[in-house]
């Protein structure tokens, strides 16, 4: 079955794809922290910050349609938060852009700041996920000190979430094939509970089989992997460019724009 893998573009090849996962993760982390900490009035500088991840997305050959689709997918949660701002903060404020000035409310400014920061940080996050294979990202996170147990769990989650989705889909198909009329709310609920139960039992079964497969290959509780991570000159160059971009905008352009 075909699945929309979150890292489906991570198997492409580009200079960005070849960068070390740790470097990409750290740059995205710092970038996100800086963008989030920007004052809410500085929408123009936010637009400047958007240029960085946007350029990297284009360079890495990630289709922009995919990028905006991903952003739209997550946007409802942020939209609710952002659109509630104009309702409770109606303090009038005058804003200007070049020779143009107009009056609005702080609530609307806050709303656009939230949406702007969301889009820019999503760009950065999509750069990370779409140019880094999930296993490389996990290896990088492990190297950066994320607890091994969490890494193992994330690895299993990523490996088996699709198997579970397939099974759920098959159960739904089996139900649809035999459901010839509306069963009513109570019966639908009962059927759903049985389906969930079946999925749960099969998950336990799978977990037992995986445990057997692991023990059969000598697993005794300690997790051994071969590290394929290595920092090259291009990684150092990427960090330098990213640091210049992030700090340059923050220190030089920000005072001018604000």
């Amino acid at each position, binding site marked *: 079955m075909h*699945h929309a893998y979150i890292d489906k573009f991570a198997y492409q090849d580009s200079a960005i794809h070849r960068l070390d996962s740790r470097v990409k993760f750290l740059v995205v982390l710092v970038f996100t922290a800086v963008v989030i900490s920007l004052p809410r009035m500085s929408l123009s500088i936010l637009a400047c910050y958007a240029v960085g991840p946007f350029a990297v997305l284009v360079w890495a050959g990630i289709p922009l349609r995919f990028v905006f689709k991903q952003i739209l997918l997550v946007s409802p949660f942020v939209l609710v938060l952002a659109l509630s701002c104009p309702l409770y903060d109606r303090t009038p404020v005058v804003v200007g852009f070049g020779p143009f000035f107009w009056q609005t409310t702080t609530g609307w400014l806050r709303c656009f700041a939230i949406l702007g920061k969301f889009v820019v940080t999503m760009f950065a996050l999509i750069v990370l996920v779409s140019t880094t*294979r*999930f*296993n490389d990202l*996990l290896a990088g996170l492990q190297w950066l000190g994320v607890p091994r147990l969490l890494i193992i769990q994330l*690895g*299993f989650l*990523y*490996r*088996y979430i*699709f*198997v579970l989705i397939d099974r759920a889909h098959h159960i739904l198909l089996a139900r649809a094939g035999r459901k010839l009329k509306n069963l009513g709310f109570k019966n639908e609920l009962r059927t759903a509970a049985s389906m969930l139960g079946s999925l749960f039992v099969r998950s336990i079964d*799978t977990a037992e*089989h*995986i445990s*057997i*497969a*692991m*023990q*059969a*290959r*000598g*697993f*005794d509780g300690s997790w*051994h*992997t*071969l590290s394929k991570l290595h920092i090259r000159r291009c990684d150092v160059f990427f960090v330098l460019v990213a640091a210049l971009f992030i700090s340059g905008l923050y220190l030089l352009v920000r005072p001018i724009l604000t």
Partner: protein
Amino acid sequence: MIAMSKAIVIENFTYRYPDGTAALSDITLSVEHGQKVALIGPNGAGKSTLLLVMAGFVKGTGKVFVDGMEVNGANLKKIRTCLGACLENPDDQLFMPTLFDDVAFGPLNMGLTPDQVKARVADALTTVGLAQMADKAPHHLSAGQKRAAAVATILAMSPKIITLDEPDGSLDPRNRDNLMNLLRSLPQTLIIATCNMRFAAALADRAVLLDKGRIIADGGADEIMSDSALMAEHGLEVAAKKTK
């Protein structure tokens, strides 16, 4: 000492499920090194359970020896290095994020050096024809590739004995033929549990017929699988004689 010269020796082994149902009753079986044995029988006959017994995952009454070592807690690590168990569903066998990591999992647990591990992974993947797929995630592989990859995870540990549970399940004829050729080429002792008589007949030189947890017949694969009365009695089909 008799057990020393054999790949597998099982003596009067009985196992019951926790609810009391007999899964295996008084099983006595020995397999020579280098033999290719088909464990045949209808669904629920106890074939998979018997394979788990050999790998030390199921404990019952009776004795089990693998390559001369008695299956018990003290020997388990050595036994699992010597006997590679390949499960029925390759999705259960391939649990790591990439094929490379999956094939490397066993050799790393054996304590081999990184260079040795890389060499073993490369050899195993080349043997099963997946050398170009090392960086692929298992969920990106086809059913046939997953099955071959599952075999590679075992081959990388260089076991003397390989057990395979329904290895031909959900494979199309081309992938089944590929797998058959691969298994035929392996020098190891093979014990294959299957309901597919054609697959069993093409691979095995000996067949052990199990039904309701008991060994019903044990002998030459051609002889047993061409006995139409015996096969029909146990819900199996007659296999065509092996072409040499």
